[in-house]
């Protein structure tokens, strides 16, 4: 359900929104770059994650306290495309 009462948006508010939206787009680009730069470290984190999934003392969290070990053949293969985490 819409939760807004119809109203006129003053020009000064429209200008403020335009400025904030432009800044937000810049911030999004900056974060995407920082997260791209993190890729080598993240690749190592993925490897460690797979090791934990195969560790009988840890395993994959299915639901709350339920866990299971993931077999070798169940692990995914890295695709050829670039790893991306910001969308």
């Amino acid at each position, binding site marked *: *359900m*819409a*939760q*807004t*009462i*119809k*109203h006129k*948006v*003053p020009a*000064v*508010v429209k200008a*403020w*929104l335009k400025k*904030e*939206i432009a*800044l*937000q*787009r810049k*911030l*999004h680009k900056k*974060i995407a770059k920082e*997260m791209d730069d*993190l890729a080598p*470290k*993240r690749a190592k*984190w*993925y490897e460690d*994650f*797979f090791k*934990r*999934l195969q560790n009988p003392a*840890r*395993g*994959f*969290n*299915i*639901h*709350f*306290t339920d*866990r299971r070990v*993931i077999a070798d053949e*169940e*692990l*995914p293969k*890295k*695709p050829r*495309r670039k*790893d*991306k*985490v*910001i*969308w």
Partner: protein
Amino acid sequence: MARKHIEPFVDREVPFKKMTLPGFKKGMHYKMLSIDEDTGACTMTVKYDAGYKLPPGMSYTEYELIILSGTIKYGDDICTAGYYVRVPAGVHMPAMHVPRGAMVMLMYNFAEPSFVESDEDHELAMRSQLTLVDSYEGMQWMPSSGAIYPAVAPGCLLKILKYDPLTEALSFLYCMTPKFWQDNISYHDCAEEAYHIWGTSWMMQFGDLPTGGYFWRPPWINHGAFRSDYGILAFGRTDSKLHNYFHWNPWTSPLENRDRAAAQLARTKPDLFNWAISKDGHNHPHDFEVPDWKEGSEYV
């Protein structure tokens, strides 16, 4: 809600700016965390100077706030850190006074920030939905397994502050105990937003999220595995029902995750799924109990 994927963002890294929008008085400062490009809906951390005052008034859109530090007086109500306030569109709040300064997380939900002086409600206001609760002292933690299936691992606890019965959108306080860990990757059909009030947690895609850390994450984006060495206290929200889709492939895209979610829907509700994908374009969801849930509501 069309907001960019902002994750991670730490508000401590940027300075406050003066709030200059009409209606808001001098002494209010903000950091923009995320903003909807279509509607102007936004989330900010806000600092009120000592002595800040605002007369009685209302907003044209619903807003929520949680007090991070300091005390805010609304008329006779004294609200300290941890107070959560949800003010529906058009509901007027009594005069606001911040005697010694305060920090809040402030969210305007469906339109840009607005403040109109008024000592009475707008004729369309839904006052029954006004919420004012001390989330620290007045509520206790619950495991998420009581509310959500499949659930996050033990040690991540919730206090539900807002539940929208139509969309199942949630606002909640959550915490992770020290040495919390959860080894899976999650995504949801909803957008998700969170702010760390205290503490650092780690996610496999984004690294550490410390105190003051924030994210706005659109639907179907991978996040996790998770851990926290010393625990966290945080505030979170979704814009519709939160379902945890867990898996262990870190390389899937949001489109692949969406397709998987749709496949799950086809398995669990096959008749509804088949009706919804009708190729003739004549299937329109209609709720006989709430016919205007999406369009033509009394508000717009």
